[in-house]
C-alpha cells in the first residue's frame, strides 16, 4: 500500500506542480523527541520515468511521522509544545553554529548533535544572528530526536538599536530576505525535527516581512479541509 504510481503529462519547456493521492498508513511507527520514544524514520523515494527515456530523476528523504503543535500558554506566557498529543518538557540550548569557518561536515554535525542528545536535551534554538542550519544538521536532529527552533535573520542589533544605531527597518532588500526565507523553508521543511519558525531574535521583524512570513508559513487550507472532512467521517472508518 505504500507504493503508488501515477501518470503525469508535462508540456514542453514547462513546470507544473503535482500532488500524489494520499498514502494510507495504519499505526505507523511515530517519531518522538529524545527521551520520549524512538525516532522512527521512513525512507520516502520519489522517481520520475519519462516514456522513451527511462528514469529521469529521483529524490529520497528520511521522514518521521509526528504531529507537533505549540501555543503560548496565557497563564505563564511560555510556549507549550505537544508531540503526538503528549506534552513535552523542553530542555534546550542556544545554537549559533559549530565552526565559525563554516567547515561543516556530517561527522561534525553528528558529534555535536549527539552530544546535545546525550545531555538529555530535546530542543536546539538556532539563533537569528547565526545560520539557517544545513540539511545535515537537521538530519542528525531527526536521528537523535532534537526538536529545532529556527529563527530568520533579524536581530535586535540590526533593527534600529545599538551604538551606532543600526538600520531601523531590517535588511535593505526585503524581497531578497523573503526569497531567502522561502528557499530556506523549501530546503528544510520535510525534517521531522523542525518544530518552529521564528521571525527574529527577541523581536518581531519589520511589518511587511512579518506579514509575508506568517502568511507563507500558515497551514495550507487544503490540509485543514482534509482534517475536517476526515474527522466528520471518522465514525464510519472501519
Amino acid at each position, binding site marked *: 500500500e505504500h507504493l503508488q504510481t501515477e501518470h503525469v*503529462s508535462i508540456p514542453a519547456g514547462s513546470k507544473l506542480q503535482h500532488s500524489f493521492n494520499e498514502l494510507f498508513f495504519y499505526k505507523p511507527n511515530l517519531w518522538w523527541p529524545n527521551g520520549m520514544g524512538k525516532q522512527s524514520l521512513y525512507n520516502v523515494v520519489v522517481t520520475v520515468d519519462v516514456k522513451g527515456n527511462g528514469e529521469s530523476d529521483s529524490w529520497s528523504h528520511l521522514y518521521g511521522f509526528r504531529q507537533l503543535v505549540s501555543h503560548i500558554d496565557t497563564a505563564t506566557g511560555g510556549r507549550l509544545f505537544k508531540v503526538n498529543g503528549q506534552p513535552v518538557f523542553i530542555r534546550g540550548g542556544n545554537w*549559533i553554529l559549530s565552526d565559525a569557518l563554516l567547515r561543516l561536515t556530517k561527522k561534525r554535525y553528528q558529534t555535536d548533535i549527539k552530544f546535545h542528545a546525550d545531555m538529555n536535551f530535546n530542543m536546539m534554538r538556532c539563533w537569528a544572528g547565526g545560520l539557517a542550519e544545513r540539511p545535515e544538521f537537521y538530519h542528525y536532529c531527526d536521528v537523535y530526536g532534537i526538536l529545532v527552533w529556527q529563527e530568520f535573520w533579524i536581530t535586535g542589533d540590526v533593527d534600529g538599536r545599538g551604538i551606532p544605531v543600526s538600520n531601523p527597518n531590517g535588511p535593505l532588500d526585503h524581497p531578497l530576505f523573503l526569497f531567502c526565507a522561502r*528557499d530556506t523553508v523549501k530546503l528544510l521543511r520535510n525534517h521531522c525535527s523542525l518544530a518552529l519558525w521564528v521571525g527574529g531574535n527577541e523581536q518581531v521583524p519589520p511589518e511587511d516581512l512579518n506579514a509575508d512570513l506568517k502568511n507563507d508559513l500558515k497551514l495550507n487550507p487544503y490540509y485543514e479541509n482534509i482534517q475536517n472532512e476526515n474527522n466528520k467521517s471518522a465514525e464510519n472508518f472501519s
Partner: protein
Amino acid sequence: MAAIGKTILDSGWIAARSTVVPFNGVQLTTTNSPSLGPDSPWMEAVIPGTVLATLVKNNVIPDPFYGLENDSIIDIGDSGREFYTFWFFTTFQSNLSGSQHLDLNFRAINYSADLYINGHYKALPKGMFRRHSVDVTDFVRSDGPNLVAVLVHPPDHPGKIPPENYQGGDHEIGKDVATQYVEGWDWMCPIRDRNTGIWDEVSISVTGPVKIIDPHLVSTFFDNYKRVYLYCTTELENRSNQVAECSLTIQVTTELEGNTCMV
C-alpha cells in the same frame, strides 16, 4: 551515458585572492586554467568553507580560534572587500547522453558570485541563504575536463569593528541578508572575512528531460494515530521541447532489520 543522480564536488578545489590573479573568468576556464605550484598564487581550498578556512588550511594566517590570534588577522572593514574577494576553481567530468541535463548546484554562497564554466558566464545573485542551481548542459563537454571558476564576493556591507564594544560592530552587516554574528557579539570575536565563501555543498546532478524540484511531505493523523495519511506534492520541470509522458512513483519503506525493507 551519465548515471542519473548527484555527485558532490567537495575536493580538488583551489583558490586565490582575486587581486593577484591576472586572468578573468573566461580565460581561467578556457586558455589559462590555474594550477598549484611554487610560484602560483593558487592554494588548496576548503569547500565547503570560508575564505578564512582556506587561508588557515594553507598557513597563510594563524588559526583565529587559538589565543588572541584573531587580532593578527586583518579585518575586512580595514582591508576592503577586495582583500577577501576570492577565486575558486575546480574541474569535473561529464558524459551526458542526448536527452540528459546537467545542473551545477551551490547550496549556499556568501554573499554573491560570478560563475564561469568553460568560458560561459552566469551570475549567482546576492543572499547567503539561497540555493543556486544552474543548468549547464549547453556548456559542458564530454571530451575532457569541464573547468569551473567562481569569483566569490563578500557581503555588500561588511561594516567596521570599533576598537572597543564589539557588540554587533557598527551593525552594517544587518543591511544584507547574511549571518550577523560575524561583526562580533558579547560572546564572539568578529570574523575577519564575515564568512565570505562557498560555505555549503557544491554538487552536479544529472537528470533526464524531467527534473523533480522540492517535494513537500505532509502527514495528517486521525483516531489516536491509528490512521495516518501521507501527502506528497512536488514540482516537475520538463526541459525538453516535447511533451513528457511521465510515470511518477512514490515508495515508502522502513528498515526492519539490517538491509531488509518492508514495502
